[in-house]
């Protein structure tokens, strides 16, 4: 393990290993194309296949948003219109791999610049077990390079990159926004989060914790910057595609779920089954549900905005209308930033197994539903529920851990003891 450890420390080796791994998988076009079409990785609003179709329409001067097929932001359209004109197969794979590397490096910087967590104070009556606890805490901290490696070599990240899902751009923007905010560059942070919002709408909820990261005097200015950036991006888009149609085709689809292609989320099956007269009501309930968590989390954990962002990313990956594995990859990438909580985690084994089982069973159930014909849509939906249950358990565990740790900081005597709230 020594070799691997040393290799991880060296950025060049770590990052080139990650790039090589991705490019090697990309050299098998059949594998890359399989993942390109998997519903777990590419949703209607992030699919690369749809992006290329949109680019083709855009290049042929056909309005890309008219056909009801393309639901991605106009800026992506113009960027990819340029990129696909480069006649080399490896342009796009290299771009996606590099974005993953940049994201990983940003995570590395976030971990580096993250203020050290409040240490657990040893209680007055110190005995062996508590000494051990403190020692363990020192032992269990993760080095920044491990955080980067955990993101880069997470199978979810790798496969999401291989699928060329455009979720990678919003992941990058979110991570960049966090870094900028942590280093005190408020306006840059807001521009990044505005870009993420522009791409996927849901990251708008991260504005609140990002504002909480800064002194309260800056709040108004930051929110204004955010709004101006979003309006600016929309204006550029209007200028690029020449009409406001894209608003309905992108944010309209995200909000009103007009495309019911299966994905890893909860929405599609529910809104296939629901009677039309209840549809609008439940649509409001579901979308409101996704955003409502901002309030309690930001109130309760206002002193730990980074943790709140992580939790909100987890919530987004479960409750947004078109989630994909890429969202969970970001969530799992942000998780190691909070290594001080790891010893409080109770469901690690369970969550690992849920993720493992659901990622094996999802393609199997998909096969049984669509190819073997011996299953049906319930099979696949059931496994997405299990997968989301895994994410939710992890979220519960995280929030329990952070609350318990806060409690332990306030009450050093309770460390290692069973606490019941009555």
């Amino acid at each position, binding site marked *: *393990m*020594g*070799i*691997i450890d040393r290799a991880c420390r060296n950025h060049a080796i770590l990052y080139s290993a990650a790039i090589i791994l991705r490019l090697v998988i990309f050299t098998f076009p059949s594998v890359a194309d399989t993942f390109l079409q998997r519903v777990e990785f590419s949703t209607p609003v992030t699919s690369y296949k749809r992006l290329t179709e949109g680019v083709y329409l855009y290049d042929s001067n056909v309005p890309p948003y008219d056909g009801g097929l393309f639901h991605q932001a106009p800026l992506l359209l113009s960027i990819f219109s340029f990129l696909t004109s480069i006649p080399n197969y490896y342009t796009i794979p290299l771009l996606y791999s590099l974005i993953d590397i940049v994201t990983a490096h940003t995570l590395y910087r976030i971990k580096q610049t993250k203020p050290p967590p409040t240490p657990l104070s040893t209680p007055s009556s110190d005995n062996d077990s508590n000494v*051990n*606890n403190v*020692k*363990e805490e020192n*032992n*269990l901290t993760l080095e920044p390079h491990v955080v980067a490696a955990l993101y880069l070599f997470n199978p979810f990240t790798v496969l999401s990159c291989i699928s060329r899902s455009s979720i990678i751009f919003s992941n990058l923007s979110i991570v960049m926004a966090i870094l900028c905010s942590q280093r005190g560059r408020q306006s840059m942070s807001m521009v990044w989060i505005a870009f993420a919002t522009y791409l996927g709408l849901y990251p708008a909820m991260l504005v609140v914790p990002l504002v909480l990261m800064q002194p309260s005097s800056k709040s108004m200015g930051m929110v204004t910057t955010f709004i101006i950036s979003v309006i600016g991006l929309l204006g550029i888009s209007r200028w690029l595609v020449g009409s406001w149609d894209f608003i309905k085709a992108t944010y309209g689809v995200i909000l009103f779920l007009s495309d019911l292609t299966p994905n890893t989320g909860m929405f599609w099956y529910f809104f296939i089954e629901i009677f039309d007269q209840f549809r609008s009501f439940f649509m409001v309930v579901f979308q409101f549900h996704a955003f409502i968590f901002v309030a309690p989390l930001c109130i309760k954990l206002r002193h730990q905005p980074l943790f709140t962002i992580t939790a909100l990313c987890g919530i987004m990956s479960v409750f947004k209308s078109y989630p994909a594995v890429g969202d969970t990859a970001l969530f799992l990438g942000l998780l190691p930033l909070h290594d001080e909580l790891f010893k409080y985690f109770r469901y690690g*084994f369970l969550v690992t*197994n849920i993720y*493992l*089982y659901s990622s*094996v*069973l999802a393609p*199997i*159930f998909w*096969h*049984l539903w669509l*190819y*073997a*014909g*011996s*299953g049906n849509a319930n099979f696949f939906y059931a496994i997405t529920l299990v997968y989301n249950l895994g994410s939710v358990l992890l979220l519960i565990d995280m929030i329990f851990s952070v609350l318990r740790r806060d409690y332990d900081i306030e009450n050093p005597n309770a460390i290692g003891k*069973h606490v*019941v709230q009555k």
Partner: protein
Amino acid sequence: MLGSWIRAKLAARRSSSQYNAERKEKIIRFVKRFTVPLSILLFFVGIAWIFLLPYQDFNKKTYISENALLPGQVNVYFGYNDIRTAEEYRYQLTEHERQESETRATFILNEFRSLGFDSALQHFNTSDGIGVNAFAVYRAPRSDGKESLILSAPWESRTGEYNTNGIAILLSLAKLFKRNVYWSKDIILLVTDKGMAGTQSWVDAYHGTGQPNYSFLVMPRSGAIQGVVNLDFPGTQDYESLGIFFEGVNGQLPNLDLINTIVTVCTRTARVPLTLHDDTSHPYSDQPWGPYVQSLLHMIRTMQYQALGHPSSDAGLYLRYKIDAVTVHGIRGNNLHALFGFHKIGILLESTFRSLNNLLEHFHQSFFFYLLLRPNRYVSIGDYMPPIILFASLYYVEPSTDKKSEKEVSSIHATSSSRNVASALTVMIMTHLSGFMIFYIMQTRSLVGYTGNDSELLVVQFALSCCIALITVIGTIFSHYRQHQPATDGTTKMVTTLNGRTLKSFCLAFSGLVISTISLLNFSLAVVTAVLIVLPYTLMRSSTSLWARIFQWIILTILSPPGLAALTIFITQLPLAHLLSFLMEDYQVVGSWLLLYISVAYWPVNMAMQVLVFI
């Protein structure tokens, strides 16, 4: 009343939560102490469960689930004239069937054309020459061409004889079908050549997915195929009973309603003795356990087909395309009274097709996951899954308790334990990579720098795969020794044993994952895997004693694919090349996943376990 009771219970539980934590600890300690006996007990409970399934009280009677089918409720018109027609065709076929593929297919084509069907030939390449399928599409007067049924018959029967009666009855029925106007689905009549390769290439061509030869662009087609009955009536004599073959590729099964329809028609309309597969023996029929033994034998036969992923008949190939299909096979036993011939076969098929014609939508009502014990008894998925869940959960007894013990240690050796996880993970990744390499080597049709005939090439490929597996195991073992000894000179032993336990947890957790997930695709394969590996892998320990190591290594080698191949060769006396070509043919022609499963899921765990023994 009830509310207050529940509230009281909840309050009691809440107040005793401290106590519960202690009890949980106690349970874990208990499980940890009795891991081995518990594993063995659970294993045998699972096995006993499987053996209970054929017992009359643990399975159910089949029933028609799709009401639209109305099996056996029509008047049949297959009469004396049709029997005469079939007999004439039989006479002609005995002359033509020995001819070359092209000539005999042309004969069928001409017959179809003279009956007025839209018909064609399909040429395809196989390893032994060009084959020719002949087929015709009957455009039913009341159909819109969106749905169709298939009546098919291969030239050669599964018994090795010519399928003379089968093709004769097919042609005679074609004439009958043409005569009547009540068909609401098109009927495709298909005579296939060269066994499974012919059926496979026809289905591929029909759906436009086969090898790119452009004849399939213009072949006559109808709509989506709703049901297939494949005829296998060898020779020219009469039959004692009718056998049903239903197992498809990778253990897939047709909807139970299709089988139910045929069974109902057989018992009500045609009155033909019925059995599963080609089994006509009635062991211990004078004993009370006779039915049990027969059901058990049928179940084992089905599981054998499923586990190998090999379709039991040509009909099994349609299942991959979401088409329900069965083969009806005429069995000629020793019993010479009460034989049946063209009349009953004709009635049976006509009535069955009339039922299939009634289908309003694709077969979906009845079961897709079942075990058939006799033509009218089945076990559904809810009853046969528990043993597999038991086998898989048995693998979690150890990892989960191991993890607890690790937690105790982790306060002292936190970093070393996380290192152990990483190194165990590396071992698993290495063995899986070599598994993928083995798969790649086995499935290529030509190896660089080697030219030889097919079977020799296969043996070389297999030998190469074994070498790769061996190198992986040895390489992994040595790389770990090299890493651990200098790093921890005082506590070498401790670090390695911990490593072994983590690795074992990984192996077991992965096997549990494989068994429980594969059981959804192919129950029998999961059972076979579980029976092979559950006990040995649970009982394996990394040990320092030389004899224990050698003993465990021998067991693992027997369980590894080369060992199993050697065992099979020893039992069946087949040459290795034959065995391998069977496997490869299944992979290439039929599209079976057994090769992939062995090389990517089964073998890597075996390699990792071998590493474990020597660590």
